[in-house]
């Protein structure tokens, strides 16, 4: 019973619930009686342990409640029974990283293989190569030109993107230029540049994708139309072995190429084209093909990819046909007149070229951003 009372006193003392007088008396007792002092220390230690114990128990209880609550709310989950589904989920969790890596490696390999397959498979269309200039080439050239020519900036809208390029030539001295439709692929307007690096704005007035021909009209006040064209357009048939030549812009400077007519049909018996024995390069597309008299027999357009020195030109007949057709639909084009007489007939090649140089243009196709 005494122990009991003593303990009670100690607890009250430690709680701080003793009255001041009582407390003073107890402290005095503590000082004088080492046993009681020891008991106080011991009990304080015990109470501390008890506190920690109850804290931990309460926290455990709280954690348990939170766990149940979060599971009910779906914030965390324990995925059903452990022995069946859980096992699978565990396995999945365990190997998902490996699986993900394997799957991505597989995916990459599949992509690479299909990419290579596509790249190396000879598609039928690829047998013919259009001779338009690739954008990068044209762009580079354009840059070098702009160094020479301050006018470049002023003639182009700021937001123009170069889409491609090739050659073209006048079919009417009033400023009508013919070129290949593929040169203008994906573009909305064009610029033409002659061999003196004079640049003119041009409007695309007609495209004939089927014939792969297009007509541009120079609309630039700097352009001074000449009275007539030096060359004519040949309507009559041409014989195998006849010598032909072309002018074009595979580079930034006008380039001359010569060759022979090697077949009266194009690739796979295409009767709308001539086959030429001639070295043509990207950029030659849209250039004129002329016979020795300086008469246009066609428009250079494609070359065979897997044969050296074989090029194809769209027969001039197609130009006549196309113009007839568009005259019906657009009366403003009635002004276009193709002359058949060539004024450079009988001259030697260098003179012929000199006279017609100004009529062959570098065509640059643009699109708005």
């Amino acid at each position: 019973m005494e122990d009991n009372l003593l303990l009670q006193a100690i607890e009250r003392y430690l709680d701080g619930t003793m009255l001041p007088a009582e407390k003073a008396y107890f402290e005095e007792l503590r000082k004088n009686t080492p046993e009681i002092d020891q008991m106080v220390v011991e009990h304080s230690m015990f109470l501390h342990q008890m506190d920690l114990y109850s804290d931990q128990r309460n926290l455990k209880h709280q954690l348990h409640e939170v766990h149940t609550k979060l599971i009910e709310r779906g914030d965390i989950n324990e995925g059903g029974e452990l022995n069946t589904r859980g096992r699978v989920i565990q396995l999945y969790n365990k190997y998902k990283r490996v699986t993900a890596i394997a799957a991505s490696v597989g995916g990459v390999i599949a992509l690479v293989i299909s990419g290579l397959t596509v790249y190396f498979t000879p598609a039928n269309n690829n047998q013919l190569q259009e001779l338009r200039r690739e954008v990068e080439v044209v762009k580079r050239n354009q840059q070098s030109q702009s160094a020479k020519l301050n006018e470049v900036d002023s003639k182009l809208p700021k937001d123009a993107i170069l889409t491609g390029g090739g050659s073209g030539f006048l079919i009417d001295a009033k400023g009508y230029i013919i070129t290949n439709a593929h040169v203008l692929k994906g573009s909305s307007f064009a610029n033409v540049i002659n061999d003196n690096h004079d640049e003119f704005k041009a409007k695309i007035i007609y495209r004939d994708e089927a014939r792969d021909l297009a007509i541009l009209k120079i609309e630039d006040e700097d352009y001074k139309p000449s009275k007539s064209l030096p060359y004519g357009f040949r309507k009559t048939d041409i014989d195998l072995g006849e010598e032909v030549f072309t002018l074009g812009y595979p580079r930034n400077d006008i380039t001359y190429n010569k060759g022979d007519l090697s077949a009266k049909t194009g690739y796979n018996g295409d009767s709308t084209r001539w086959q030429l024995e001639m070295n043509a390069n990207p950029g030659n597309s849209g250039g004129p093909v002329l016979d020795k008299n300086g008469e246009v027999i066609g428009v250079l357009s494609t070359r065979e990819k897997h044969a050296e020195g074989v090029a194809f030109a769209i027969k001039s007949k197609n130009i006549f046909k196309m113009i007839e057709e568009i005259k019906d639909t657009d009366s403003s084009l009635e002004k276009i007149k193709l002359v058949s007489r060539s004024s450079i007939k009988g001259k030697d090649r260098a003179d012929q070229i000199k006279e017609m140089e100004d009529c062959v243009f570098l065509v640059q196709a643009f699109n708005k951003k």
Partner: protein
Amino acid sequence: MKAELNEQALLKGLANNDSKAIEALYKDNFNMVQSFILNNNGSYDDARDIFQEAMIALYEKAKSESFVLTSKINTYVYSICRRLWLKRLQQIGRYSNQIDSLEETVSVEEDLEIHEKRNAEFAIMDRALNSLGEPCKSLLEGYYVKKMDMQHLAKEFGYTNADNAKNQKYKCLIRLKKLFFAQYNIGE
């Protein structure tokens, strides 16, 4: 900075047994620990045990006066769980070196030592309490753990008045102390 303040606030809340803070901490960290345990041969129950133990360790740390937060909470919790789980695996002889650890960890050895000491003390008190027998056990639990007042306890246990209950409580307490210190001093 804001996140850091937030973490500080959470830890403060945890130290004060604020259930909102505990819930937030639980929610933010449990899934990470669960997937770690599941990925390393553990079960859902293991995950819960380990995580809750880590929370207790965090609680002890948050309560201690010398407490400083040296890392982000999730790094700390993850590190504790990793250590605890490794230990558990070692104990059941399924220890493998290939325990997954891509997350960063911080050294928690010291904290765990303190925590283990605490756990041992807890176990001693628990055992002492449980060997008391009724009604002593419930009476003391009611007073010290559930923090009920004597009036209430007297009513609950059917004592005629609070003084009698108090007397009984002290008797029980003396027994408990004996049991506790018998174990505790051996442990020292």
